[in-house]
């Protein structure tokens, strides 16, 4: 089974979101970067499927050359090779993202049985790249998947809705977008990291068309000014909380 996983490098925002002076970008000068969370699950799922069914895992990241950092991390957990869809670093809108991924897939030329993505990115969260890519590739797409198994070329996909699971079945080749909770991603091992250094990473330059969603600025929503009451970690503090619980009617 040949699997392609599309991943995105995003800033590792800790507690506070700091913007650049012009207010159009996150100030990432003091931030590390990571894989967008759902995509860790996508890579883990791909590696597990190849362990079970054979084949190989190819990673595809669209962005600057720095994306190699996240690609090498994921090569270390068991993916076989990686592609960078190289851009000038400007932020593409969702249509341009899907178009850029498609351009890189076509330039690479290898066929895939399964294309995995995260259901939405941590930063922009457009909820549409996988669906647009599926339409462009002429493939069926199931999104938001939290349970995945493949039998005789048919993917059984589960979506969590409250305590229920909706089941979708789709024959491969297909595009599937997944969510956190699908699995527990493994950490890269030391031998894995050493192997990852030698795995091939190829680059295809892609052009980003003019965005049709033009970002003017970013705004940190004003915090609701709350008067925080600080309590001591003792019996008096506990009594104050019990009183507060009673006031809002959650404790009789």
């Amino acid at each position, binding site marked *: 089974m040949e699997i392609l996983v599309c991943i995105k490098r995003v800033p590792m925002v800790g507690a506070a979101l700091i913007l650049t002076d012009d207010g159009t970008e996150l100030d990432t000068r003091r931030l590390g970067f990571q894989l967008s969370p759902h995509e860790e699950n996508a890579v883990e799922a791909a590696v597990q499927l190849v362990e079970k069914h054979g084949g190989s895992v190819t990673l595809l990241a669209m962005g600057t050359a720095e994306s190699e950092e996240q690609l090498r991390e994921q090569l270390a957990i068991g993916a076989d090779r990686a592609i960078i869809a190289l851009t000038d670093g400007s932020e593409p809108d969702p249509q341009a993202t899907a178009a850029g991924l498609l351009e890189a897939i076509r330039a690479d030329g290898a066929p895939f049985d399964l294309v995995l993505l995260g259901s*939405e990115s941590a930063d922009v*969260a457009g909820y549409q790249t996988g669906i647009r890519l599926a339409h462009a590739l002429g493939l069926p797409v199931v999104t938001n998947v939290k349970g995945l198994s493949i039998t005789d070329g048919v993917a059984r996909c589960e979506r969590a809705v409250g305590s229920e699971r909706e089941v979708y079945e789709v024959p491969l080749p297909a595009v599937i977008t997944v969510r956190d909770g699908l699995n527990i991603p493994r950490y890269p091992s030391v031998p894995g990291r050493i192997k990852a250094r030698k795995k091939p990473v190829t680059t295809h330059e892609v052009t980003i068309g003019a965005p049709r969603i033009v970002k003017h600025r970013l*705004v940190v929503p004003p915090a609701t000014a*709350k008067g925080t009451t600080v309590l001591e970690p003792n019996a008096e503090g506990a009594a104050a909380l*019990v009183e*507060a619980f009673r006031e809002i009617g959650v*404790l009789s």
Partner: protein
Amino acid sequence: MILVLLDVDRDALDPVSLQVLTLSRGLDPDVQAVVAGDASVAAEAAAHGAGVVHVAEHPGLTDYAPRATAKAVVQLIASLSPAAVLAGGTPRGNEVMAHVAAFLDAPLATDCTSITMGAPFEVTRARWGGNLLEESSVTASMLLATIQPHAVAAEPSAAAGTVQAFTADLDDADLAVRIVERTGAAATGVTLAEARVVVSGGRGMGGSEPFAMLDDLAALLGGTVGCSRVVTSEGWRPHSEQVGQTGTKVAPDLYVACGISGATQHLAGCKNSKMIVAINTDGQAPIMQIADYAVVGDVHAFLPLLLAQARAASAG
């Protein structure tokens, strides 16, 4: 005219659809709705301002089928030429609208908190799980957008709600992806998303065993247990309990955060709680900044005190 896609599951209308109808009335007096296969919600949509409810009919539209629904919406768009097509920023709303946008090769702005009609359209939309807002303009002849849940409160406004059926022209590819089965019983206990009280634990809990205290406290308060992402990554608790941007978003009357520092990923899932109590050794932790009550101390020492007093109060 604004066309609103209704999110319906087995005769039940998702409440966010009513919020979208409410928001749409502020953009254009002519609001119409579209639903796939199921006219049962027409009255509810009419009560929130839908002048016409278009019902897509096809023998294949027996249960949720995202691409088929989108194809039907695209066909309706061709005959109605709405100024905008809006849906709730729910899993289904986002999914169907992304298919609509892909069919039309048109831009789609998801999770919008406000919309201004015009050329171009101006939108404000949520990024980073709502921790950041983006102000953008959308260049298109028709706006496609989804609305962030709870961006507006639903308000009734009676309209005719005339049901107009139309036949959707669908092929096998449109109907290839649809629900074939549902598993897992409907919840008998309190579900995380709807619980009035959520008692959550994070890295500071140190392992799975101390969560027994949270189970006890949640039971006393008639709530349920949640956790942060690190807790599920460590395997201390199941992912179904994860609160946050990639887990469940909650807005209970009371959120008790135990040993949780409050990374943006977590705050995105709990900051809309009415009352937040945070117990953490670090008084400067981000969760403390948004807490109504901040207890600076070790959860392992403080929770037994809190439990004892809560038990006494409950018994008394």
